[in-house]
Structures are given as C-alpha cells and as structure tokens.
C-alpha cells in the first residue's frame, strides 16, 4: 500500500498532547507509523495547514428506514441541489436527508472517517446495513435501540441483568450492532398505549417499569458485557420547556457505576443531544422560556463517568427524525407540516417531521444558544462532543459552523446582533451573551476526534495520530498562526468544510479538496460471547413464534450480503 509523509503541518493530537507543533506524520500500510518506517513515501506539503486525526462522529442519523422515509417524503429537500456524477463521484443530492453517496462524500469533505448511526430498529437492521454499505468512504457502525424493547422491559422489571445482557449480546450479533441505544426510555412503548413517560419515574403501562430502572438496568447490562461503547441515552421529555430537571434525574442514574471494559472507556452513560434536554421555563415564548445549560453543566462537570454531545441547532430547514414517536407527533401539531410514523413491532417506533429553525423566531435562536452554551460551559472536552443530532437540530454539514461559533465570540455576537431577530431576548433568557470563552483547536480536536473515539471504545484505532492507529488523517487549510478567530471567524467554517486532504485507512480519499477515491469503507460491529443462556434462547424463540411477523431465521442480518466488509470487535463476557 501507499506510503505518505505529511510534512510541516500544525499538528493537533490531544492523545499525544501535541498542541499545534509543526510535525511530520507518516502513514504506511493503512496505519500511522514512525517517520523512520517509510521507504519511498509520497510527500504532502502541509505547511501552513492544520493536521488532525480524521473526525469521529458519535451520533448521527445517516442510514436506515427513518432516514429513508425522510428522503422519500421530502422530494423538496433535493430540489436544486443535486449534482451529476463526475469523475469517480456518483450522483449526489439532498440537504438535510442527503443520499447515501452525498453522506459519505460530505463527511470526507469535512475530514471525518468514522460515523455512528445512532438508532437502528433491530427488525429493520437489514435496511440500515444496506444503506451503510452504500455509503462510501467512512467507516460506520449502528446502535440498536433497546429502551422500549419488550425483552428488555420484561427482564429489567424482574431485575434480571444477566438475561438482559444475554439478550443484548444475541441482538448485537444478529443485527450486527455496536452498542446500546436508549431512546425516550419506556416513553415510546407507553405511546403505544396513548401515553408517554415524561419523567424518569413515570411507569410504563403493562410492563410496570420506570425509565430510571430501564436506564440503570441497561448501564448494568452494558458493564456486565464490557462493551466498547457505554449506554447511549436520549432522555425523556426531549424538547419540553422545563425538562432540565428530567435530564438531571436521567444523568443521576449513572451515579455509583464504574466502567468495566477492555477498550479504555472510563464512562458509563452518554447523553446525546443535551441541548434538547436543557430547557427551563414553561413555554416556547421569550416570556416563558429560559436556558438551563449552566445548571445542567454544573452537574455534568462534577461527574467523571458521564459524556454528552451537544446537538446544536443550526437554524436551517431540516428534517427531524427519531425513535421518540410521541415527540414527533407533538412536533407535527406545532408546525402543521408532514408527519410520518412507523411502529416497529415489539421493539421501537419512529417519527419524521420537516422542521424550520427560523432565525426570526425567538425559540429557534434560544435553542441555538443553549447548544453552544453547553460546549462553552464544559470543563472536560474529552467528554463533550460536537453534533447536531443530524438531521434533527441541523445537518451534519454544519459542524464547521458549530466549530466557528465555539471558537469565536465575535461570530456569536454577530449572530445575536445581526442574524437573530430576538438577539436581546435571547441574551436575557439564555447565558450566551455573558460567556467569553473561545475554544482552541486542541479542544476542538478533543471534541471531534479523540473524545468520541474514546467513548466509543475505539481509541486504539481512531482519534489520534499515534503510531499503530488507523491511517486516518485530515488536513485543513487553516493556518493557526495567520488566522485570528475573533477577526476572521468565517475562515474557520470554510477550512473545516473543505479538508484539503483526507487519508482514510492509508488511502488518499480527498486530494486538494476533491474526492478522488470511494475508499474501502467498513462496518464495525460487536460480537459478544456470553455463556449459554437457555432461558433467553427459549424466550427469543417463544416471542418469534407468538408475536413477530417474521421468523427467527429471517431476522438475522447475514454478513456476506449486508455487511460485505466487516470489522468485528470481539468481546468475551462468558466469564
């Protein structure tokens, strides 16, 4: 394979503690190596540019049935933005729900190498994997949803952690999944009964279990198995004014647990898109709403076993989609646009609604402020990750814009003064106006690479330029000696939108800003061995016979077709 020597770039690697030093980075046979290991490398002159490990996205909705529903029912999302095939690139289209091809290309253009699909309905795992397979370049994995699954609810009601764990291990194997996603714990199932779980203590009808018990049970099962990633939760009452108390209650469920795994992960709970969960007040108006980002971060900053991602609202027209069925129904009654809902038998549900975060409305601006505040109040940037909950709060292609807002107070002031109609009300009801902090490139590297790689249990492969890591290197046209974030914030956004080079798995994928290869994408999944568990096996057979509309034999995602290029992470939980 090719050898590359990336010379004289400003290197940022939080794992190695490199903070903008001029260094040479060497890639050989798909891995990062010492520069002395090269024999005849292709040299890349990175002088005046920023060099980082390729980005790692901890949470995005990029593949599967609900994304496909979004694409199908929003033809207008592709209007006037499709580009024909050119060179090795195939036709791409779409903005908030882009085609699989554009998804891969756009992540590559931003210098990303790994993306976690954040919610896989197990019954439709095949669909998820087909789309992952068709997304070029980036390595991907998917988190099956467990928080409303009948097996899980029944086992956890009886406090059967071992059985829950055995079921999870079985499901990860048959769906080729990566870890445990927990969306609106109990609430989506309750919605099947016309109800919801609005706090962690609301009881799920029939199953008689609370969200708090589901969250703790899934943390215990996760650590029982020792999975690479921790329990990944989207808490109850997403988007509701005043929900920050529910969020604090959700986060508190992690107290007393420590991570047990062989992957270098030291946290037990990842709370996703925390922005949607940090609201105070009683309504969405400027008189009734307030940011509670500070209160939430006061708690998070004191904990050492919690991570979160931001979910920044980017003020775009986008497409919301989540396994939180009741929330989408609620949203469709607020904006009166299209609404799609799918129930997935025994397992989960999903809803899809287009949404415009209008900068002329108070609430969209306030939501924007809350997301940015969380990033600015965070103390440990290795536990704080940049996302937009793509496409819920905005498309992933806005990450560079989020970086700009985090790095430049001037850019935030510009928003409050010029772009947002209710800048003054937002200053009064949110904290954004009083925060001076500007994040550094080192901190951005923690939030977009080293940190997410660590919480996913993949720090041995991604997020660093340490010899032995995957040969995933992004080079951005950003000269930290020449650019002043307070004066030229636009240059930050431009640089992180258009990586000059991306080397993925040792292969040149982006060259001088152009996609030159479709790469060799892999699907990561976790094969977890547990000891024989006849009860769980019997329960699975029973449920398939009694309830499922498919047979057990037709449920499994067969590897050769759906996952043609797997990377399997073995976990032995049989002891």
């Amino acid at each position, binding site marked *: 394979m090719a050898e590359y020597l990336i010379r004289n770039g400003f290197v940022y690697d939080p794992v190695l503690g490199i903070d903008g030093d001029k260094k040479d980075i060497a890639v050989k046979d798909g891995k990062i190596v010492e520069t002395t290991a090269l024999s005849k490398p292709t040299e890349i002159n990175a002088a005046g540019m920023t060099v980082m490990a390729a980005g790692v996205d901890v949470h995005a909705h990029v593949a599967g049935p609900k994304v496909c529903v979004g694409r199908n*029912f*929003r*033809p*207008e*999302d592709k*209007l006037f933005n499709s580009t024909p095939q050119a060179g090795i690139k195939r036709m791409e289209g779409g903005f908030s729900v882009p085609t699989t091809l554009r998804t891969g290309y756009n992540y590559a253009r931003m210098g990303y190498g790994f993306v976690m699909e954040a919610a896989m309905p197990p019954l439709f795992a095949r669909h998820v994997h087909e789309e992952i397979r068709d997304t070029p370049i980036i390595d991907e994995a998917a988190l099956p949803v467990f928080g409303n699954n009948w097996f899980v609810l029944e086992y956890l009601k009886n406090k059967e952690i071992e059985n829950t764990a055995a079921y999870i291990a079985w499901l990860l194997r048959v769906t080729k999944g990566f870890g445990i996603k927990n969306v609106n714990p109990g609430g989506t199932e309750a919605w099947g009964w016309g109800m919801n779980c609005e706090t962690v203590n609301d009881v799920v009808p029939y199953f008689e279990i609370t969200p708090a018990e589901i969250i703790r049970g899934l943390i215990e099962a996760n650590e029982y198995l020792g999975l690479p990633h921790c329990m990944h939760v989207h808490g109850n009452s997403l988007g509701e004014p005043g929900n920050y108390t529910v969020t604090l209650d959700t986060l508190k469920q992690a107290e007393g647990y420590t991570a047990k795994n062989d992957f270098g992960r030291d946290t037990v709970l990842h709370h996703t898109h925390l922005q949607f969960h940090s609201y105070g007040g009683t309504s969405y108006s400027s008189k009734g709403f307030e940011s509670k980002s500070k209160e939430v971060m006061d708690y998070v900053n004191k904990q050492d076993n919690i991570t979160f991602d931001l979910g920044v609202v980017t003020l775009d027209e986008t497409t919301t989609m989540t396994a939180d069925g009741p929330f989408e129904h609620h949203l469709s009654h607020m904006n*009166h*646009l*299209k609404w799609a809902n799918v129930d997935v038998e025994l397992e989960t549900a999903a809803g899809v609604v287009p949404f415009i975060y209008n900068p002329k409305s108070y609430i969209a601006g306030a939501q924007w402020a809350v997301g940015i505040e969380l990033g600015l109040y965070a103390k440990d940037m290795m536990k704080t990750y940049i996302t937009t909950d793509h496409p819920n709060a905005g498309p992933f292609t806005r990450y560079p814009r989020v970086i700009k807002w985090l790095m430049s107070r001037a850019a935030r002031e510009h928003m409050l003064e010029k772009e947002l109609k209710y800048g003054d009300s937002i200053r009064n009801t949110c904290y954004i106006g009083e925060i001076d902090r500007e994040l550094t490139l080192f901190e951005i590297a923690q939030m977009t690479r080293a940190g997410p790689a660590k919480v996913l249990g993949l720090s041995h492969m991604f997020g660093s330029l340490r010899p032995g890591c995957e040969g995933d290197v992004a080079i951005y046209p950003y000269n930290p000696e020449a650019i002043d974030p307070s004066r030229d914030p636009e240059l930050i956004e431009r640089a992180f939108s258009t990586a000059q080079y991306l080397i993925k798995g040792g292969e040149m994928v982006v060259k001088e800003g152009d996609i030159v290869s479709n790469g060799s994408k892999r699907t990561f999944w976790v094969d977890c061995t547990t000891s024989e568990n006849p009860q769980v096996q019997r329960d699975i057979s029973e449920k398939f016979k009694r309830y499922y509309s498919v047979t057990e034999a037709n449920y499994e995602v067969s590897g050769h077709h759906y996952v043609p290029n797997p990377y399997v992470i073995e976990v032995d939980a049989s002891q």
Partner: protein
Amino acid sequence: MATVTLTPKKVPSLRLEADNITPDVFAGKSAAEIAGLHVFTGNTQELLGDYFTVAGSAGATAAETSIVIDGDASRVKYIGMKMSAGDILVKGNADMYVGAWMLGGKITVKGSIDAFAGTGMTGGEIIVDGDAGNYLGAAYRGDWRGMQGGLIRVGGNAGSDIGTFMRGGEIIIGGNTDVHVGTHQEGGRIVVKGDCKSKVGGQMVEGEIIVFGDIEVMMPGFQYRNDVDLEVDGSEATFALYEGDVGERHPKRKGDVVFGKLYLKY
C-alpha cells in the same frame, strides 16, 4: 428595453429543458452568447442555438430585457423559471413549469401552457390567453409552499389541482377548472369565472376561492354563513359565503377562528 427574439428552428426529439430562457440569464449577453447557453434534452446537454435562431441582444439587467419566443414552444419547459424582472412573450404554446419559482417580471403566453406553471412563485405575473394545465400555482411535489405572491391570469380553462398549498397572490381563471381547487390553501385568492367540478377547498385553512359558475359537488367540510355583495375582477355580484374546511385545524386571530372562504355566485 432591449429585445431578444428566439425563433424556433427545430422540434426537440425529447422535451427541451430550457431554464436558461429568462431575462436574468440573458441580461448583458449578445445574441451569440445567448445561442451558446445550454439546454438539456434528456441527459444530453445541447445549446439553445441548436433549437432557436437568436436575434437582438439583451439589456444590461433583467429589468431592461424582453424575450420574445416567436413561434411554438409546446415542447420547451421551464420558460422564465426563477426570473426576477423583465418580460417574456411566447407567441405560441409553452410546456410545463412556465414561470416556476418566479420572483418578478411578466410572462405572457398567447397560446396554452402545460402543468406546474407558477410553481412556488412569489411575485410577478403570468398571463395566458389559452388554457392552463394541472398544478397551476401549486407547490413543488412534497413541498408546502405553493404560490406565495403575484398574479396568474388564464383566459381559458385550467386543469386539476390548481393553487395546491397556495399561500398568497391571486389566480384568475376565465373558464372552467377540473377537480381539486385550492387544496391545503393557506392564503391568497383563486377566482374561477366558469364552473368547478368537485373537491374545491379540501383541507383549506385560510384564503379565498370565488366561483362564478357552479361547483358540481361541494365538499362536505364547508358551511354556509351568509350572502355578500362583492366586486371581483371588475364585475359586481351577490355570492353565498361558505367557510371551511371545518375538518382542518384553523388559526385564531383576535379571538376569532379564521376559516377559508368559499364564495359561490348566485
């Protein structure tokens, strides 16, 4: 005002996609430059000059540019798409998407036009002497933003689904329409001088539909309120006012529920 005249010289084998025929694109260009603009037939890119003889030259800006299509354009789509100013005269017929997403200016068609004219338009005028096809002043497929401003005037009949998701502006039809008028309408005004078939104002939230002739089958979601005298497009008459669609959600303004208004002439 400088005029560019396009004279058809060849009938395209497939429909010609000619979204470059607008005053905005032509502005500042010579006849030779205009002839060199691209058009598509299927997936093949060709030149405007392959299909039209170009004479005259454009003004410096769109507002100073007139375009005349001196002949039949029944197989030419997207004439005047996204235009912001200036005017276009088509002496024959035109194909689909005339003046789609138009912002301003004026398009006059002496013959008839096909479907999707004025899709999502926000301003300007489309004047058609003949008939119009389906989805006049409607929203793009999937979108909820139909015609939002401007005027569409059709001398003859219109097809089905006119003003779907209309939010503003005015559509005046001299003759009759087919089914589905003002479906999901949220503003603006549709005037039909002739008859409508059925499904008029289905799921209508706000706005007005005024029918001078008959509605073959009324929607059950409209309720008679009272009689009103109106002057519409230069003629005075007494109309029965119906409000609806009562099956749809309706906003409240100053304490009153706002309905869609359907006026039917006695």
